[in-house]
């Protein structure tokens, strides 16, 4: 009973915030609606018994990716009138995409006839085995190579991003932290006793 109620709550909110992600005028609002959509999708995962995926979604997407996304959107001064000016050029592709999505939605609606929603017990994990263990057992045995290859792809992307951005520019005087830490009061200050009317020579 509660599960059904919560399912419809999360599902409605996902759809609603998805709509608002598209239709909200302010780009920051768009991102915040997107975050709400992520969050409610995590709730749906939780209902399906995929608690690990649910929390991973929140930690990775809501906690890290969307924060950086929001960061960028807040910094940029996006002019949406300018972006909308391009609508006449893209309407054909957009229309095709919309039709495809419409058919997909219809297919999903037809699949409804296959039966009602059984919320609990859908996750294909053996009973009494936590999600994480089931997932780990399969990731580190059957999908080991794919898993590690994905890791290497990410590593390459990371190294690439660092190589592209970390150029050596001239004229910089970066701080030498260990030198700063080695500095002691004796070398930082000098006690002088200048005579009256005389300056100090350093």
């Amino acid at each position, binding site marked *: 009973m509660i599960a059904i109620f919560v399912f419809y709550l999360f599902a409605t909110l996902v759809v609603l915030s998805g709509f608002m992600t598209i239709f909200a005028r302010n780009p*920051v609002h768009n991102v915040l609606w997107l975050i709400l959509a992520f969050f409610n999708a995590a709730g749906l995962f939780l209902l399906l018994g995929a608690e690990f995926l649910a*929390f991973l979604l929140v*930690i990775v997407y809501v*906690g*890290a990716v969307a924060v950086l996304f929001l960061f960028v959107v*807040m910094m940029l001064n996006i002019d949406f009138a300018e972006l909308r000016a391009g609508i006449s050029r893209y309407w054909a592709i957009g229309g095709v995409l919309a039709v495809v999505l419409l058919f997909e939605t219809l297919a999903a609606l037809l699949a409804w006839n296959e039966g009602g929603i059984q919320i609990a017990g859908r996750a294909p994990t053996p009973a009494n085995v936590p999600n994480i263990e089931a997932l780990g057992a399969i990731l580190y045995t059957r999908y080991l190579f794919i898993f590690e290859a994905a890791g290497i792809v990410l590593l390459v992307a990371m190294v690439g991003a660092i190589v592209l951005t970390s150029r050596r520019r001239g004229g910089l005087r970066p701080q030498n932290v260990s030198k700063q830490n080695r500095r002691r009061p004796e070398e930082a200050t000098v006690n002088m006793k200048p005579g009256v009317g005389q300056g100090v020579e350093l």
Partner: protein
Amino acid sequence: MTEWFQSTWLGEGFGWFLATLILILLIALPLMLAVAMIIYADRKIWAAMALRKGPNVVGPFGLLQSFADGLKVFLKETIVPASANRGLFLIAPIITFTVALLAWAVVPFGPGAVLADINVGLLYLLAVSSLGVYGIIIAGWASNSKYPFYSALRAAAQMVSYEVSIGFVLIPVILWAGSFNLSHIIAAQQGHILGVFNGFGLNPLLFPLAVIFLISSMAETARAPFDLTEAESELVAGYQTEYSSMSFALFWLGEYGNVLLMCGMNAVLFWGGWLPPVDWDPLYWFFFGPVATGFFWFFAKIFLFFFIFSWVKATVPRFRYDQLMRLGWKIFLPISLIWVFLVSGYLMLTRYDGQPVAPASEAPAISTVSIAQ
């Protein structure tokens, strides 16, 4: 208790709902009281270290100071700046405060005394603590003012950076305990050191991680010396600049709620949670039975860590922003990564003998004196 409610005319669903609601209030209301008292304690400790008296006027020893402040703040007018984004401006403190309360759902207070004994408790904590940054970012942006905005950007970068090192610090603990469940993590620490002392923190392999976690938790809660989000000499009051009245108080409550949570996390992950420091039987029940003794030890440890937090706040000067980032990315991240390798290698050699890993569902059973059920 949940079963009792379910057995009455309320039925299974509604009985569970009502019982959980009562348990939530049983955690949240004392927590707010604790926040009020811990603010008082913070000010007293800080004052003592600065050779001042601290709050000493309202009530005996100034004990009611926090309540007087709360009342004062409550009676003020809520001002929404004209150019602020009204909806988000008001939602931001609510998010901060709610998220600070949410995390306590999985914290085990004593043997069996936990609201939600879920097997991904630690992931839940990570998820909730990663949400905390939204309150600050939204507040900074919605205020439509320079300094709050700078503060929000700082907060976003700082919290995301330190979450990385916290995540890597947690992995060795999880590996050692063999579970994400906080109760199991505590149970795994019983007699961890030579069968005498409880707590992962005394383990020489895990002690450096305990230190990193303590420092990272200060950075994660934007507590001094990492309170760059509200550095008053640079940013007025940071993201709180435009806030007044209860919306300001909610930030304040949420911030200290988070600090208490992080103190609790230090206790749970590295210093045995509600276990006594020494694995000696009388220490488990001497204080009005086992559950109350669990509460006693857990609160004592929280207070000890809060004292350390206050001590650091009173004595360590604020970091510069580049120093903060350097500490997070160039020092903590590599060390914690190396430690993940060290600990997993050590466990592989000693525990599994090169054999496939046994399922951790055989995690040690915890003594079950349950008040949550």
